[in-house]
């Protein structure tokens, strides 16, 4: 089995649940369109999903078939995406991350300011911020409890689109063109792709190519 890139998306329950689910699902789907092997899961460990509770979504991308069949949680996430920036204050989001990983935060604050809240930031290979709330600002609230089963809003209609654009540019695991076929709000995807702020920290490990 080749290298599996693990992506963990942190979000707040109910109020931004759909957005994070879209990030994991749409990014995995775009990578699949490019011939990669993918998995994407909602979380069942952090449930019951309550308003504002921190929850996770997971995606995995690999060039070869993924043979992790029974564990859906990412123990060693290479990429951590924060859909709501306050989460960095209350959770050790880099838990289990191998050295040189990537952190993407949806915030309009400067990167240096966000790093103050991450005591173990020396693990990071790179950090990126994108102001998805400023670009799109739409948060679809789904109270049906169906976890996407009856989702009629479409993938990436809200703040998920700019975050996906930023991920496409910084991770290089899926192309923007493939994401544009999936995401509803293509204009926000483009803006996220162009407006992402990015900072590399240290010499990265050979398997990481953050920043393209």
């Amino acid at each position, binding site marked *: 089995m080749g290298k599996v890139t693990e992506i963990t998306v942190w979000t707040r329950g109910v109020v931004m649940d759909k957005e994070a689910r879209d990030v994991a699902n749409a990014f995995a789907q775009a990578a699949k369109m490019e011939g990669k092997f993918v998995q994407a899961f909602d979380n069942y460990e952090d449930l019951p999903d309550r308003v504002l509770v*921190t*929850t996770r979504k997971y995606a995995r991308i690999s060039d070869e078939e993924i043979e992790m069949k029974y564990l859906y949680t990412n123990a060693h996430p290479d990429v951590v995406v924060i859909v709501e920036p*306050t989460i960095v*204050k*209350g*959770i050790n989001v880099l838990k289990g991350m191998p050295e040189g990983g990537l952190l993407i935060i949806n915030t309009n604050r400067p990167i240096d300011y966000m790093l103050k*809240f991450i005591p173990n930031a020396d693990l990071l290979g790179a950090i990126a911020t994108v102001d998805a709330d400023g670009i799109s600002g739409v948060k679809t609230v789904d109270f049906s409890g169906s976890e996407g089963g009856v989702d009629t809003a479409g993938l990436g209609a809200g703040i998920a689109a700019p975050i996906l654009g930023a991920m496409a540019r910084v991770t290089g695991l899926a192309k923007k063109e493939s994401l544009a076929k999936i995401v509803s709000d293509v204009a926000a995807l483009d803006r996220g792709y162009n407006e992402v702020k990015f900072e590399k920290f240290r010499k990265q490990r050979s398997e990481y190519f953050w920043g393209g």
Partner: protein
Amino acid sequence: MPIKVPKDREVPFGAITPAPIKQQELFITSNWRIVRPVIDHEKCTRCFTCYIACPDSCWSFNEKEEKMEWNWKFCKGCQICIHECPADALSAVPELDFEDGVVRLEKPF
């Protein structure tokens, strides 16, 4: 099969446990907040509306200093007190403006 109780938690049959404590330290929910209520003590009229409205009893009255006190450990940032305050003494301030006031956890809760 008898229930295995750890030695330090064993109590005699019919024992009375201590009175319920006010704060359960095992379930700190400060990391649920996106914004926090900040009180302006000049505007506050001590009407206790926030004390009544808060679902988690995070507002209490400090009788020595004669002002309302906020419990940062269990406030979930629901903003009910901010909406209910008749004197507009409370305002919502983003949690990221402050460096402290959130317990950092390894797990979501």
